[in-house]
C-alpha cells in the first residue's frame, strides 16, 4: 500500500502544477520575442558612443578602451581635431572606432577605462547576424545621433525595441570609490546614455544617512 500512496503523491505534484499553470499562477517561460523579461539596471548589452549635450563627441580617440579590452575586440584610431571645427572637445577624436561583437565578452572594462565616459553599455542584446562582417560594429552604428537617439541595427524589425538602446547599464567608475571626499559633487553614474543628466555624487554624511547601517 505504501508504494501506491507514493505514486499518488507524485501524481498530485504534477496535477497541482498543471492547475497552477492553467490558472496563470505559475509560469516559467515567457513568450520571448513578444514579451521581454525585466533586465536589471546593470545589464551589459550593446555598446554606444555618447555625445555631449552640445553635440560634441565624447570620444577623444585615446585607445584606453582598446587597451583595457581583455578580448582584444576594440579597434580605435584617433585623428587630430580641426581647430576651426572640432569634433570632440579634446585634442583628437575617435576617427575609427570598431567593436567586433563576436569577440566581445561584454565585461564592461572598456566602459570603466574610458576617461570621458564616451563608451557605455545599453540593454540591447539581440545582435545576431547572418555574416561575420555585420558583427563588426563601426562608428556609424555605435555613435549616438546628435539628437540623442541611438542607431538600431534592425530598424525595420517590428519587434525592435528602440528604448533598449536608451537605457544605459548605469556603470560605476571603478577608480572612484563612492563617498570619497574628493569626489563630492562630481557626477558619478548614469542610467541613460548620452549627455550627462544624472545626480552628482552626494557628500559623505548624505550618503551615510541614505545607506543602511553596516553590520557589526
Amino acid at each position, binding site marked *: 500500500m505504501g508504494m501506491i500512496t507514493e505514486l499518488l503523491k507524485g*501524481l498530485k505534484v*504534477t496535477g497541482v*502544477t*498543471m492547475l*497552477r499553470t492553467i490558472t496563470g499562477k505559475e509560469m*516559467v517561460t515567457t*513568450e520571448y520575442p513578444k514579451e521581454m523579461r525585466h533586465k536589471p539596471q546593470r545589464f551589459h548589452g550593446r555598446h554606444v558612443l555618447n555625445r555631449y549635450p552640445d553635440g560634441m563627441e565624447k570620444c577623444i580617440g585615446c585607445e584606453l578602451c582598446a587597451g583595457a579590452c581583455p578580448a582584444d575586440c576594440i579597434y580605435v584610431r584617433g585623428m587630430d581635431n580641426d581647430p576651426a571645427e572640432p569634433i570632440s572637445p579634446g585634442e583628437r577624436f575617435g576617427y575609427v572606432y570598431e567593436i567586433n561583437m563576436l569577440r566581445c565578452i561584454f565585461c564592461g572594462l572598456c566602459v570603466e577605462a574610458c576617461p570621458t565616459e564616451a563608451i557605455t553599455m545599453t540593454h540591447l542584446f539581440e545582435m545576431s547576424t547572418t555574416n561575420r562582417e555585420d558583427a563588426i560594429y563601426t562608428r556609424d552604428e555605435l555613435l549616438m545621433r546628435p539628437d540623442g537617439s541611438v542607431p538600431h541595427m534592425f530598424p525595420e524589425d517590428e519587434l525592435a525595441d528602440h528604448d533598449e538602446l536608451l537605457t544605459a547599464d548605469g556603470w560605476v567608475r571603478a577608480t572612484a570609490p563612492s563617498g570619497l571626499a574628493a569626489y563630492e559633487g562630481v557626477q558619478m553614474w548614469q542610467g541613460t546614455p548620452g549627455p550627462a543628466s544624472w545626480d552628482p555624487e552626494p557628500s559623505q554624511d548624505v550618503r551615510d544617512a541614505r545607506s543602511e547601517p553596516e553590520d557589526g
Partner: protein
Amino acid sequence: MDWAQVGIVVLRVVLAFVLLLVATIINVWAERKVLADMQSRIGPQRAGPWGILQTVADGLKLFFKESVTPRKVELGMYLLAPFLAVVPAFLIFMMVPFGAPFMIGDREFALQGADLNIGLLFILAMSSLAVYSVVLAGWSSGSKYPLIGGVRATAQAISYEAAMGLAMVAVVMFTATQGEGGTLSLAEIVTRQGGTWGGIIPRWNVFPQVIAFVIFMVAIVAETNRAPFDLVEAEQELVGGFHTEYSGMRFAMFFLAEYVNIFSMSAIAATLFLGGWNGPTWEGTIPAFVSAILPTVWFLLKTYFIVFIFFWLRSTFPRLRYDQLMSLGWKRLIPAALTWIVVSSVAIGVRQFGLPWS
C-alpha cells in the same frame, strides 16, 4: 447486391478512420500542451490557434524529409515494419462503437467500423500483431540499439498482453450476467452498460470491476510502450530504440501508430469499463440533432479522460528498470488479475445460484 448496404459499410469505416486521424492530430498536440502545463511551460502555440496545428506542421515537415536507408538494413522487413505498426493500430479502432446506432429511414446506421462478434479477441490479436512491427524494425535495422529495443518489446508485450487479456476476461464474465448469455462484441458490451443502478450509479463495468480496470490501465500503458513503460524506445539508453534508424515519413508512421494506439486503447478502456457512448441524452427535451450527437460526445469525453491519464502518468513517473518491469508484470499484475477472476466468478456464481450450502 444491396449497394446501399455497401455504401453504409464504407461510410462507417471512413467515419471511424477520419475520427481516429483527427483525434490523433489533437492527441499529439494535447500531450505536448498537457506536459507543458505540468512543467510550468507554455507549450506549442505558434501554429494555428493555441498551436493546435502543430501536429500538421510536424507531419508536413517529416513528409518532406528524406527517408534515409542505412546500408546494413534487411530491406524488406525494414520497409514493412512501419506499415505493420500503423495497420493494426487502425484496425483496433474499427471495433470500437463511438456513438449510439441510429436509424436512417429503415436502415440502422451503427457508428462503428465493424461489429465483429469476436471483437475483443480481434483487439487482442491486433495488439499482439503490433508488436511484430517493433521487433521487425529493431531486428532489420542492422544496428545495436534498435535490436535491444526490439528484444525488450517482445518480452514486455508478452508479459503485459497476458495481464490485459485476463483483465478483459473478468469484464466478459461480468457482462455475461448483465444480459442474455456471454458476448465478445463491443457493441453488445456497451449496450449492456446502459442504464443505472438504483437510478444514481451508472451501470458501468468500472464500479463492480475496479481491480480489473486498474490492471487494464497499467497493461495498456505498457502495451502502447508509453512512459513509465517506454523501455522499448528509452531515449537515455537506446537513442530512439526500435526507430533509431528510421527517418522522414517512415519515422512518422511509427509516431502516428503510437498515438493512434493510445487513442484506440483509451477508447477500448472507455468502452469496456466506462460505458462507452452511454450517457444522458435528454431525448425530447433538447433538439433531436443534439441528442443524436451526445453519445459520441460522451464517448470522446471518456476516451480523452483516459488519454489524459496517459499524459499524466508520463509527466509524473520515471521509467521502470527492466527487472522491475518484468516483476511488476509477472509477479504482481498477472497474479492479481487471476485472483480477481476467481473472486469475481465466485461473486457472480453466488449471485446467480445462491450460496452452495443454502
